[in-house]
């Protein structure tokens, strides 16, 4: 059984005197029948696939609709000019998030995390972290277990699909997962990890899913950027010592209730919002 609340993972970690990521590794071994080594190897393969997708970015590729492609290169060129207001780290995160979202739209191989539409958030944060901080890949793999554990709780107790819970459930979930992962890498304890996830998710509550033409392109690709950057600011707040005033599991429960209340026209049906603007209708 997957964990239904983050508090349970933290309690289990304290009881077993293990770290958050090891509790999720143990749980995967119990559920899937994989050995510890097999599970670690599989997670490592997921990270390798993320890095391959990042380095295989093709700036000339365009999606079938013609709406997606090329923006990742624009951000890369911008970063290399060294005049960005927000610094290299964040600009690189933005660039990688756009690149992955565009690769997905152009039918390249990506890793759904938790969904294909939100596939840019977690790799943008983790690959940039590995490149800029020069840490070992093992550490990143451990961080992915934390992201996965948070994602499991979100899937169990709320939603992770746009059709059910709106964009908050996809990009919001990915952002919370990435926030937890990077907080671990920055040395945060389990409590801090959970609060980073909560702070990230709170910023995404209520986000609707209204994609132009029903395609995973507009606004999805750039939402990956805001999800990734949001993960980092949430994590930095938590590392600095800020706590979510609403406990993490209550934030997750709020997302579920908000998702249930979202009208169907704003849950991946393209019947409202951006999808029915004159420009969107004109393009389709």
């Amino acid at each position, binding site marked *: 059984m*997957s964990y239904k609340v983050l508090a349970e993972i933290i309690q289990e970690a304290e009881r077993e005197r293990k770290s958050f990521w090891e509790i*999720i590794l143990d*749980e*995967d071994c119990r*559920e*899937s029948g994989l050995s510890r080594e097999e*599970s670690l190897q*599989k*997670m490592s*393969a*997921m990270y390798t*696939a993320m890095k391959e997708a990042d380095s295989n970015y093709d700036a000339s590729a365009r*999606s*079938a*609709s013609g709406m997606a492609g090329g923006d990742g290169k624009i951000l890369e060129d911008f970063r290399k000019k060294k005049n960005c207001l927000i610094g290299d780290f964040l600009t690189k995160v933005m660039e990688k998030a756009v690149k992955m979202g565009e*690769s*997905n*739209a*152009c*039918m*390249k*191989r*990506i*890793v*759904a*995390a*938790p*969904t*294909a*539409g939100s*596939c840019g958030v*977690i790799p943008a944060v983790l690959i940039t972290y590995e490149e800029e901080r020069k840490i070992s890949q093992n550490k990143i793999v451990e961080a*992915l*277990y934390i*992201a*996965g*554990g948070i*994602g*499991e709780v979100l*899937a*169990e107790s709320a939603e*992770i*699909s746009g*059709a059910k819970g709106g964009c908050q459930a996809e990009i919001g979930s990915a952002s919370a*997962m990435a926030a937890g992962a990077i907080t671990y890498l920055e040395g945060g304890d389990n409590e801090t990890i959970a609060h980073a996830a909560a702070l990230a998710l709170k910023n995404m509550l209520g986000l609707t899913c209204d994609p132009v*033409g*029903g*395609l*995973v*392109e507009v606004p999805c690709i750039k939402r990956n950027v805001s999800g990734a950057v949001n993960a980092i600011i949430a994590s930095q707040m938590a590392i600095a010592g800020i706590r979510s005033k609403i406990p993490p599991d209550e934030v997750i429960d709020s997302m579920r209730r908000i998702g249930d209340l979202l009208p169907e026209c704003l849950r991946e049906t*393209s019947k409202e919002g951006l999808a029915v603007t004159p420009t969107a209708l004109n393009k389709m």
Partner: protein
Amino acid sequence: MQLFDIIGPVMVGPSSSHTAGAVKIGYVAHKLLAEPLLRAEILLHGSFGATGKGHGTDRALVAGLMGMKPDDAKIPDSLSLANEKGIEIEFGSISLKEAHPNSVLLKLEGKGRRLEIVGESLGGSIINIASIDGLSANFSGDYPTLIVHNMDQPGHVAEVTSMLSHKSVNIASMQLYREHRGGNAVMVLECDQEIPEQAIQWLKNLEGVEKVTYYSLK
């Protein structure tokens, strides 16, 4: 949901339901046909037809029919690959009765065999094979699956289940359907272990059993 459904799967984009799920439907159909594909008529229903083109659903289905899995980088090129192999592909649209919004009817022709399958993509990359040759089926393609078409008469279920018991194969789920009393019937068994080839052959020779189809994960 399991951990590697959250971090993963590795797949070709853009959509887990309209791309990865579509590849999987095609792949299961490819395994069920179990011989080289010569001709495929692909009839898209609902959202598969409406937004399928932008999601590459057409290329995804054909890639699956050619034996590719959802992470195969050649998926976008499947239409030209099929063309090179001389496989005849025809697309159309259809309105299926009581079908999931993401459904497809596949009419396949191999060397000696024809197969008709309705596949549904349920979200995530989870799929359901809703019917085979016009009879209800309902299986996910995540387990080794045995499909037996037989006459609706006493004893066939017992024959199949006792054979599985002898081979130490555990049944994860089992469904029975029939057209009408005494007519055509089908049983669909999802199993925890693979069924040995000779056991499948034995089933094929049983009286009253008309067709045995086996979907292996190997």
